[in-house]
């Protein structure tokens, strides 16, 4: 049913349709509206046979989900930013134990400096924690990916993180098709655990494992993720059959058929990139986009096939590995490795801590990649003047003070703080 609805509330409705049996959450912006929405659905009696557990921290939230999942319940939680870091040990435990928990990550920057706005630093901090990570391009996909995530998680017995851009998607109200219960029930069978803690048949989960078996446990986790590379396209096709639209998959190509330049990106930025591409196509520039939906497992082969005809590839991402560069660019580079006449790769970082990514800036970036490509990592819309002055003053004075506060003072003095 079509609704004009906030992204978070649409996700809450979709998660409720998946019949979770235990939801445990701790509020943190910008994820809060999702778990509030679920709490409301339980209170109104629209989600039954589900226990909603308020906990005292994110570490407890995921720990409760782990316990519930191990006891055979379909378990869900959500978090963002520092919340994900606080549950980090449990994040590794959930995947290490092979428990099919689904978690929404309302993507948000990580402090310090404290910042509540969107980027992908939180997802990237846990990218190697063994969870599958799926990125939603819009709120329709955010809804649809949750339904696919439970199916995928439970088939593989592995946890899945659905990454949704904080504020940009979670707080946007738009037209979303909310599926009905019959559709979701037809797609998602009841949870049939591969391991369950049952007093009638006692066993343990989470034994100490020494050097004799640890490698094999990790190999099998890696193997399961490679199985996901096969299952994700299959589940996307089955989803399209039942729900009548394509959502999810490993990656999607947009106007790449004859493209000289292909942009690679993840999440909500892809919509703005598509509009930019349409404008550049009108000017005769052969440019396209590959949207990565599945970041873990990373679709190396599918991406290689999608990119191999291009001359240039621009990877634009909302995160930076300080001291190295863009993590997504680094992963894309692996897919191009050993490819004869591989395209040139250009890495750009954008939208950190909620900085808007605009079409004019994207136009400039993509043109620059064609006519005057840069070396290393390009920071889109970097205020070079402010950065230059800060570097200069730290060289002049030993006690130069805190960087963030110095930058804010500079901006206040120059009166260039954004009108908003």
């Amino acid at each position, binding site marked *: 049913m079509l609704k004009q609805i906030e992204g978070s509330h649409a996700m809450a409705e979709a998660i409720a349709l998946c019949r979770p049996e235990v939801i445990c959450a701790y509020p943190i912006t910008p994820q809060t509206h999702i778990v509030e929405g679920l709490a409301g659905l339980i209170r109104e009696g629209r989600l039954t046979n589900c226990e909603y557990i308020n906990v005292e921290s994110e570490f407890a939230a995921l720990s409760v989900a782990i316990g519930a999942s191990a006891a055979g319940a379909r378990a869900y939680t959500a978090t963002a930013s520092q919340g994900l870091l606080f549950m980090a040990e449990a994040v590794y435990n959930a995947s290490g134990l092979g428990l099919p928990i689904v978690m929404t990550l309302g993507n948000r920057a990580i402090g310090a400096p404290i910042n*509540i706005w969107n980027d992908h630093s939180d997802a990237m901090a846990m990218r190697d924690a063994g969870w599958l990570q799926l990125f939603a391009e819009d709120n329709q996909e955010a809804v649809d990916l949750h339904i696919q995530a439970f199916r995928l998680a439970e088939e593989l017995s592995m946890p899945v993180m659905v990454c949704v851009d904080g*504020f940009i998607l979670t707080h946007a*109200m*738009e*037209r979303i098709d909310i599926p009905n219960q019959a559709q979701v029930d037809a797609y998602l069978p009841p949870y049939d655990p591969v391991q369950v803690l049952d007093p009638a048949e006692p066993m343990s989960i989470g034994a100490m494992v020494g050097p004799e078996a640890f490698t094999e446990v990790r190999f099998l986790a890696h193997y399961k993720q490679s199985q996901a590379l096969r299952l994700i396209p299959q589940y996307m096709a089955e989803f399209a059959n039942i729900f009548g639209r394509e959502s999810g998959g490993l990656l999607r190509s947009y106007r790449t058929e004859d493209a000289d330049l292909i942009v690679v990106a993840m999440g909500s930025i892809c919509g*703005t990139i598509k509009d930019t591409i349409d404008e550049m196509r009108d000017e005769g520039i052969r440019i396209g986009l590959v949207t990565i939906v599945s970041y873990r497992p990373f679709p190396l082969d599918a991406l290689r096939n999608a990119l191999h005809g291009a001359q240039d590839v621009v990877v634009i991402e909302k995160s930076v590995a300080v001291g190295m560069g863009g993590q997504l660019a680094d992963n894309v580079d692996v897919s191009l490795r050993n490819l004869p006449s591989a395209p040139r790769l250009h890495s750009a970082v954008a939208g950190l801590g909620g900085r*808007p990514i*605009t079409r004019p800036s994207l136009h400039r970036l993509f043109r620059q990649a064609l006519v005057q490509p840069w070396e290393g990592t390009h920071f889109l819309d970097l205020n070079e003047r402010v950065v230059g002055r800060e570097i200069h003053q730290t060289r002049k004075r030993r006690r130069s003070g805190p960087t963030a506060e110095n930058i804010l003072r500079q901006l206040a003095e120059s009166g260039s703080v954004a*009108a*908003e």
Partner: protein
Amino acid sequence: MTSSMFQVRIHGRGGQGAVTGAEMLSVAAFVEGRHAQAFPSFGSERTGAPVVAFCRIAEKEIRLREPILEPDCLIVQDATLFKVVDVFAGLRPGGYLLVNTNKTLAELHIQEVVARLPHGHSVIVPATELALKHVGRPLPNAALLGAFAALTNVVHFDSVKRAIEQTFSGKIGATNAAAAISAFEYVMAQQQPARVA
């Protein structure tokens, strides 16, 4: 792309319902079978602080996720904002301006901007006053949407009314809708004084 899309930027202060206003406008477009995207400027929503909310309306799917940089219409919920933020940034040459105030446009010292816009595209409406009269609280957002329908004709007033009643149930919905009708009529009277008289 942008030419087939109508973009509204609402400037207000935290507590005036700018975000809810943008959301209700998106619902009004939705009930007409159109695509709409409403979103806040994120984060700084403290009572009294300047806030911005956005709404895009289009006949096809809206993919764009940047803030609205070149609005077709500005809705200003608080006339004291002109001194604090660059409210008019990016306003399109053929755009609309709707200001909640008891003063005249001349008294607000924004004639320069008004002169740049087509005749009849700038109006004031005492939306807070109308809200106090009908709703009993100084929340101008619903009244401003009634005025918006009269000024731009981008959405039908009936759709605005439905959106208000869908957002606020019962008496609160009815009183907000009444404020919106008053504001609609107030602007229609400014636009077409002969007919109303």
